[in-house]
């Protein structure tokens, strides 16, 4: 069988120093959504650019529907659609003109382009703005137009590099619906994202890369299962208390607890026993948790365990010194579990 996308030991170094890809291999089944996860600078965009023939790899091989991206780039380009990391629309053209340009450069007939473009503008709620220069568009509208442009030529393999970054929840839902409808028609989608929620919801298979290497792969469920059955979340009054609690709870489970701000997390297999024991230990140390929850592990936890990093959004908030990052994490989880 032919995989929709196949990478074999792909390597790429930029300007002789930055090793962007250090031997990446994975395969994507046709007609599925494949999620490529990783922290900033992990090499996600480089993978997408090599697969879309935008960049050449230093070594290794990559195939799209069996065609080598290095030796048959012209064929590959007729099979793919790309929505790159920055919403690549010409801001001096209208939405309709942008789609016209991309369609014509895909060598579609004029009639066909205008039909497709009208369809897509409707589907992405851009019909009203179709004849306005895109410099008047909001960030979300540009991003939607960018994704629409990647679909003009009905690609068999679609590459979406962080397609929902900067979109509001409604716009994100539109893009998700579009991705799912494309896949229902047989398109293969490779998606990079910084939203674990998005990968969890859409992708059938995931690969996590960091420092240009694949560090985990599998279905969202299998990755989460590797984390242990449940996660015990303890909220403490302040950070020093959290650190003390983390120290005190070291023996409660074979995996050491992780401390993030005012939260202590313990991955456990038998929740109830650990909860009882944890509370007893904390009481002995004179520590009273402010919140306590047992929950299913999320991809956040997987990501954290694998890369030692929070997801990019939260990391950025942390850099701002916003103390709310813990609150944000738990809010996200609550919304997911509901």
């Amino acid at each position, binding site marked *: *069988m*032919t*995989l*929709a996308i196949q990478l074999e030991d792909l390597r790429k170094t*930029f*300007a002789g120093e930055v090793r962007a890809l250090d031997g990446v291999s994975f*395969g994507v*089944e*046709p*007609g*599925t959504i494949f999620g490529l996860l990783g922290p900033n600078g992990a090499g996600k965009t480089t993978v997408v*650019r090599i697969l*879309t*023939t*935008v*960049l*050449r790899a230093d070594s290794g091989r990559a195939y799209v*529907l069996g065609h080598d991206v290095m030796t048959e780039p*012209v064929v590959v*380009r*007729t*099979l*793919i659609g*790309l929505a*790159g*990391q*920055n*919403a*690549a*629309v*010409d*801001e*001096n*053209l209208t939405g309709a*003109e942008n789609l016209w*340009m*991309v369609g*014509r*450069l*895909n*060598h*579609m007939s004029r009639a*066909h382009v205008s039909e*497709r473009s009208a369809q897509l503008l409707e589907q992405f709620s851009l019909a009203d703005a179709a004849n306005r*220069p895109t410099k008047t568009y909001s960030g979300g509208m540009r991003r939607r137009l960018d994704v629409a*442009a990647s679909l003009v*030529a*009905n*690609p*068999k393999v679609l590459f979406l590099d962080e397609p929902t970054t900067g979109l509001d929840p409604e716009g994100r839902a539109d893009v998700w619906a579009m991705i799912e409808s494309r896949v229902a*028609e*047989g398109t*293969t989608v490779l998606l990079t994202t910084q939203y674990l929620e998005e990968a969890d919801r859409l992708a059938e298979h995931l690969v996590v890369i960091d420092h240009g290497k694949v560090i985990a792969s599998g279905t969202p469920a299998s990755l989460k299962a590797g984390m242990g059955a449940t996660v015990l979340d303890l909220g403490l009054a302040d950070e020093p208390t959290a650190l003390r609690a983390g120290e005190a709870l070291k023996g409660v489970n074979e995996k050491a607890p992780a401390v993030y701000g005012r939260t202590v997390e313990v991955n456990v297999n038998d929740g109830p026993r650990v909860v009882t024991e944890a509370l007893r230990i904390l009481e002995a140390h004179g520590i009273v948790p402010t919140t306590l929850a047992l929950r299913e592990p999320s991809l956040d936890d997987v990501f954290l365990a694998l890369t030692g990093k929070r997801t990019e959004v939260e990391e950025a908030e942390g850099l701002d010194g916003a103390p709310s990052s813990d609150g944000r994490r738990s809010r996200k989880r609550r919304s997911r579990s509901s």
Partner: protein
Amino acid sequence: MTTTAVPVPEAPLAAPSSGGGRLYWAVADTLTVTKRNLIAYTRLPEAVFFSSVQPVMFVLLFRYVFGGAIPTPGYHYVQFLMPGIFVQTVVFTSIGTSIGLAEDLQKGLIERFRALPMSRWAVLAGRTTADLCRSLFVMVLMTAVGYAVGYRIGTNVFEYLLGILLLLLFSYALSWGFAFIGLSAPNSETAQLMAFPILFPLVFASSAFVPLQSMPGWMQVWAKHQPVSIVVSAARDLMSGTPKPDLVFPPFTSIVSTGPTASTVLWAVVWSLGILAVLAPVSVRRYRRRAL
């Protein structure tokens, strides 16, 4: 990966590269990109207006401020000046190519183009062709400005138009060079800054504004043989006519004229085609290979 595969359906709307060969699509893609860039110019009337103001200022400056102090054997100064200003104008207009491509890079459009099954030449050919249209527009405007400040065609309309054609060819060739700069610059502001150190010695150390004989000897060696001077001489021959030995302007000077030869037009064409032949493939290679 051992699971069974869902067969990939034949997409009925997949991009047909059928009908016509590579050349057909190269031309079609170039026209698409040209149209895209021309539409963009119509959406930026302010930019087009203000980029036209600068050459008009130069005309006024040299015609009415500096001109009276510059002796030009064989020509009235305005007759000497205007072909030089024309060349300066089209050369400066061609900087637009580097700015436009640097912007395309910055905004991720080059990334999009490189993933499309379009001709590898079309992005640059479309940009340079659109800038050629812009140069033509500016030349029409400058012809009117020239008339207004007292410039009169010294030959005939046919030769004047040949002169414009020559200038457009030269600016088109330079556009391909500026394409390389645009694709090498980190952003559009830097692209513009990178262009100026290259342009200044070409445009100002030339026979565009002053006669070569007024320069020191070492400067004359450069100024006489560099392409802008050669194109200026050719344009002056075609538009203002060859110099009249008995006419010296202002009348009180007495520099002996060494008029341009008839072969200057040929040399100007050779230079333009040479620049094009060397820089076009180099820039296309840059477009294909540049790291993003």
